[in-house]
C-alpha cells in the first residue's frame, strides 16, 4: 500500500520509482522537500538505529550518532547516485560508518593508556540468536547459518563489534591475512545466500 501511494505521488518521476521507491523520496528530499525527507526518516530510522545501537551500544550516544547520520543524509541527498547502490544500502553504510567513527575516536583516547586491544573482551554479538522474528530476520538468520562459525565470528566482530580486521586478528589470535580471507569468504557466501545481485 505504501508502495502504491509512493507510486501515485511519484507519477512525475516514474523511472526512479521503479528502481527503488526510496529513491524517489530521496531525490525529492535532495531538492529540499522536507516532507519527503520525513517519509524517508520513517522508512529508514529502525534500520539505521538497529545498526548504530549494535555498534555503539550506549543508547544515548546511539541517538546522537543517529541524529548526525540523518543530518548527513539530508546534506548529501542532492549527491545520491543510484548507480552506486540502493538508498537503504547507502544510508546503512553512512550510519554504520558514523557509528564506527564514534567508537574508534572514543577508543583511541583509551588505547593510549590501556593498550587494550589484546585485553578487550570478545563480544560476539551473536546476530543469529538475536535477529527479530520477522521475514527478514528468518532469511538473514538462515543465511548466517550457512557461514562457517569462523567466518560468521569474523564478520560479526567487524560489522557489529566495530573492530578493524587487524583488531579482529588480534582478538582471535589469527593472522591478519586469514581474517581478511574469512571476512571476504563470509561476505561472499552471505551475499549469494541472500540472492543479492552483483
Amino acid at each position: 500500500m505504501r508502495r502504491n501511494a509512493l507510486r501515485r505521488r511519484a507519477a512525475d518521476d516514474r523511472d526512479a520509482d521503479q528502481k527503488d521507491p526510496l529513491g524517489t523520496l530521496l531525490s525529492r528530499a535532495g531538492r529540499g522537500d522536507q516532507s519527503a525527507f520525513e517519509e524517508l526518516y520513517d522508512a529508514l530510522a529502525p534500520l539505521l538505529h538497529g545498526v548504530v545501537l549494535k555498534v555503539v551500544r550506549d543508547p544515548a550516544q546511539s541517538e546522537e550518532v543517529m541524529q548526525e547520520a540523518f543530518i548527513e543524509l539530508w546534506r548529501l541527498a542532492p549527491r545520491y547516485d543510484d548507480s552506486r547502490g540502493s538508498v537503504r544500502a547507502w544510508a546503512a553504510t553512512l550510519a554504520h560508518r558514523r557509528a564506527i567513527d564514534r567508537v574508534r575516536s572514543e577508543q583511541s583516547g583509551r588505547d593510549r593508556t590501556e593498550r587494550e586491544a589484546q585485553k578487550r573482551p570478545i563480544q560476539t554479538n551473536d546476530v543469529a540468536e538475536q535477529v527479530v522474528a520477522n521475514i527478514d530476520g528468518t532469511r538473514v538468520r538462515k543465511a548466517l547459518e550457512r557461514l562457517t562459525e569462523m567466518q560468521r565470528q569474523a564478520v560479526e566482530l567487524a560489522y557489529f563489534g566495530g573492530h578493524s580486521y587487524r583488531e579482529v586478528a588480534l582478538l582471535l589470535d589469527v593472522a591478519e591475512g586469514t581474517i581478511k580471507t574469512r571476512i571476504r569468504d563470509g561476505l561472499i557466501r552471505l551475499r549469494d545466500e541472500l540472492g543479492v545481485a552483483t
Partner: protein
Amino acid sequence: MSGTDIHQLAAAYALDAVDYHERAEFEAHYPTCAICKAEVAGFRETLSQVAAATAVPPPSSLKARVMAEIGETRQLSPLLPASVIDLATHRQGRQRMVRMLTAAAVLVVIGIGAFVVGRQSGDDNGYAEAADAILGQPDTRISPLEATGAAEGRFQVAWSPSANKIVVMGDDLPDPGPGKAYELWLVDDAGSHAVRLLDKADGRKVRRVLSVEGSPSQWAITVEPEEGVEKATTDIIFAAPA
C-alpha cells in the same frame, strides 16, 4: 600495498573494518576498478539486509530533533559533470583570491569553525598509487597555493570532488621546527568546519592523500604544534581558493 592486495580489501572496506589510511587508499582505488566497485556495492546491499534483521525503532523524540535540524541545515550542491567545470574560472585572477584569502584569514584568526573531521596517519606507502588515481579523475583541479608572505617552499592541492579526495603536495619546505607541523585547513562555504592535516615535511616534502567532505571553498596552511590544534594559532602562510 600492492595492486593485488588492494582488491582483497573490498570486503573489509564494506564492513568499515579498515583503518583510516586503508580507507583513503581504497576509496582512491575502487571507483575506477569495475571489480571492486561491483563487490563493494554487492556487499553493502548484503549488509543492509543483515542490518534490516536487527531493526529497532529509535525513540520517537529523535524525529522531531532531526526534522528541526534539517530545517536549519544547508544541503550540498549536486556534483557537476566534469565537462561543466571550467579550469579557466578557477585560475581567474588574483583579485578574487586575495578577497577570499582575506576572508579565510579572518575566519581562521577569529577561530570560527576549526572542527576536526578527519585525519590521516603517518607514512603513506600507497601514496603514489592513491595519488595517481585521484590525479586521473576527470574532475580533478589542481590549485597551487600562494605564499601570503615570505614563506619558503610551495604547496599544491589537487581536489577531485567526485572522489571526495585531495592530494597534498609540498616541496622545498623548511623544517617547521621542533614539535611543529604543517597544518592544512579546508574552509567550507559555511565557514563552519575545516579539516586539518599535520605533516612534519620530512625530506622537505609533504605527500599526502586524504578524504574531504563537503565543498571546501579554500585551502590554507599554517604551522601548528604537531599534536594538532582545533583553531589556528598562527598566520596563514599559504592559501588558495579550492
